[in-house]
């Protein structure tokens, strides 16, 4: 207890220096907390983006001309309590889009309803201020398609579709909006109203994909129940995908993990540098401050104070600095993250950034376990710094005494 009090007194006596050390520790720890919570946030946002885009349970026809409506009826009758919404979708890949002299046949056009657009909107960045409404006769284009076609809001795009019987069907759409999304999920994607898609495919009322969003709180076991019930009755008719059950099998998530691995590598390098800086500065700071207290410590040593007590004294001092510094650092990181969370990727030049961010926003996740993990590393660096700093001081002192003799 005596050493604790003595350490606190020493820190209070050197207020200015102590404040500087605490601020420095706060700066370094806030940078570490920010980088780790940023990496956690990207995963959370990516998962949310995949959920928005691919739903909790995605069901599609096993055969090209199969009918999915019995599955829809079955789910509506048996699992309406678990479901938040069910979105029908028609996908068309054999299409071409024309606008004046420009042409593209890349990607997929989905026929869906406006609710789906509302659902995916949080993860997208629209080039216009207001969220466009997917009315019949309108089309929403991903920035890549818009750039290929040189399309802008209000322009007319001609879509040609070759039906499965070989009929070439054409329809004109007005561009209602252009969006930027995570390229891993929305590259070369366009949305039209489901009725228009059914008209183009010459198959009214036909739907080949169903996206089911489950209510919050529905557990994985219940999801597995739904899947097994559907599989039991419609195994030969449909393909079921629930990405959350095995995220590694989801292509977008797999690609995201690779991109994130690269970002992680850069951030971990940076974190190692931060830790090294903490170590070096603590070492240096304790070395110089103890050197400045040479007379006081020499007197104490003359009266029989052991080296281990000096180590402990420095350790307690560093503990005070560590606790205050990391607490302040954590708070600073939280405030900075709140400011950064207002940032959204809106510049088309930085569209690729969404692949690393997981979506259009900058998201931070202050997960207690990772905060503790980072805190542990800061603590170890501080301890090591204190140890080597004091060891160097004591070595120097012995050398000086020897040189005097």
């Amino acid at each position, binding site marked *: 207890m005596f050493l604790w009090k003595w350490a606190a007194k020493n820190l209070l006596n050197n207020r200015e220096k102590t404040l500087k050390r605490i601020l420095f520790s706060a700066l370094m720890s806030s940078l570490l907390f920010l980088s780790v919570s940023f990496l956690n946030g990207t995963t959370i946002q990516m998962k949310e983006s995949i959920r928005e885009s691919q739903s909790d349970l995605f069901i599609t026809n096993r055969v090209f001309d199969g009918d999915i409506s019995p599955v829809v009826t079955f789910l509506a009758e048996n699992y309406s309590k678990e479901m938040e919404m069910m979105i029908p979708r028609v996908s068309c890949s054999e299409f071409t889009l024309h606008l*004046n002299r420009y*042409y593209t046949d*890349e990607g997929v056009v989905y026929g869906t309803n406006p609710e789906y657009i509302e659902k995916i909107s949080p993860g997208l960045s629209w080039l216009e201020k207001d969220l466009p409404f997917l009315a019949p006769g309108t089309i929403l284009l991903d920035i890549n398609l818009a*750039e290929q076609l040189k399309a802008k809001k209000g322009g007319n795009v001609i879509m040609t579709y070759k039906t499965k019987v070989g009929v070439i069907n054409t329809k004109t759409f007005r561009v209602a909006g252009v969006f930027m999304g995570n390229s891993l999920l929305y590259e070369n994607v366009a949305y039209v109203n489901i009725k228009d898609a059914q008209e183009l495919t010459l198959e009214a009322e036909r739907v080949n994909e169903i996206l089911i969003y489950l209510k919050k709180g529905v557990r994985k076991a219940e999801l597995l129940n739904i899947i097994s019930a559907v599989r039991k009755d419609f195994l030969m008719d449909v393909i079921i995908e629930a990405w959350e059950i095995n995220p590694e099998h989801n292509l977008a998530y797999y690609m995201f993990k690779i991109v994130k691995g690269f970002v992680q590598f850069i951030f971990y390098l940076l974190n190692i*540098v*931060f830790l090294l800086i903490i170590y070096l500065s603590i070492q240096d700071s304790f070395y*110089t401050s103890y050197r400045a207290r040479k007379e006081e410590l020499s007197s104490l040593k003359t009266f029989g104070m052991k080296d281990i007590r000096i180590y402990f004294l420095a350790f307690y001092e560093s503990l005070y600095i560590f606790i205050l510094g990391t607490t302040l650092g954590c708070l600073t990181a939280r405030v900075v993250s709140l400011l950064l969370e207002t940032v959204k990727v809106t510049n088309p030049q930085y569209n690729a950034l969404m*692949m690393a961010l997981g979506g259009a926003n900058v998201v931070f996740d202050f997960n207690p376990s990772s905060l503790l993990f980072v805190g542990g590393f800061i603590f170890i660096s501080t301890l090591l710094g204190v140890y080597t700093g004091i060891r160097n001081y004591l070595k120097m002192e012995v050398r000086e005494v020897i040189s005097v003799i």
Partner: protein
Amino acid sequence: MLHNLKLAWTGFHRFRKRRKNLTIILVSIFFLMCFFTNIFFTLFNNMEKYWLEKVVGGDLIVAKSEKRLNIFRPIEPENYFNYSQFKEKYNLSGKIHSPRLRVPVVIENGNYEKGLIVLGVDPEKELSVTPNLDLAKGRYIKEGAEICISQEIAGQLGVTVGDEVIIFLYTKDGYVNVDFITVTGIIEYETINEYMGSGVLGFIPIGHLRSLQHISTDEISEIVFRDLNPLQKWRITRDYNIISGLATIPILVLIRLFFRFFLLVFFLLIVLIAFSSSYNNIQSSIGERHREMGVYLSFGAQPGMIRRIFNLEMTIYSLYCCLMGSILSTLAFVALNRARLYTDFSPVFQVFLSTSHFTVNYDFRVYLLSFALIWIVLITSSSKTIYRTSQTKEIVNTLTRR
């Protein structure tokens, strides 16, 4: 001067061991600076070799109204400009460059059709900016109705070298034009295909593409260049836009953004720590040398001379730290290069590192730059202490204080 140098050397030699702590910090900082700067310079260099020399060619000169460009996107005909006039005005003769005409077309072979961007190029000039372009089959275009397409497009259309395909395009005036064209070569983009918009690029001799577009003058959509000097660039940017070649590929924009972010944060922190450490250390070590300064003063030295001696000592000290740091970093690079980091196991790593075999090129300029930075930090952080302690009044006060 030699006398001062001798005194500075003695000072450095005497205090070298006492500054062990600062020496460790400065050597580590020099090592980190050299290590990361060389690694990132190698990555930037690899990117240029891998992406520019294979596909993009270099930086692009486009019309003022084209603010940004994606390599796989068209350019509007209103933004075409005259090559001869440009060449004459900005004196491009002798410079490595290639004029291009970027046109969206549709290629049809039997029942299959595919939209792609074709670049009308002068084959000789184009190969001078993209010397690493790989041909999987056939030969590069020469003249007339010839086209080179990527492996993926060839696969989708079911064509091979020597096949004749139909090309659809709009003329500059907006009419549809159709012609036959022979596939002479199939380009191998390897991993680039997967990450760069499916490699929807084709190459046609510029003269033929102009005739298909019904353009009689030598209009072009862009010029790719490699070696323009800053003055030429400055002159060009008054009338045109210069877009960095690496900024035309979205994935590279992301990679470069992270690399730059890392380097910026890293350098800011490293300078901060170097400054604060050396300030603290030097303050305490020079503060102890009043007696030495008193001796200099009693022998008739002026404060200016004392400052010079200490600055020289700092220079020798920074040289010493940098020498140790450079030995360490060179050893680290040698070890890293001997480890033979192959990236063949994952195409994604190849894209991020822009090479299939990662070796660090250690550049002497990086060592010089790091030394300069350490020296500046050391001199600036010590200047205040040196100035204060070298004042005659200050020394006399300290030495006569009881």
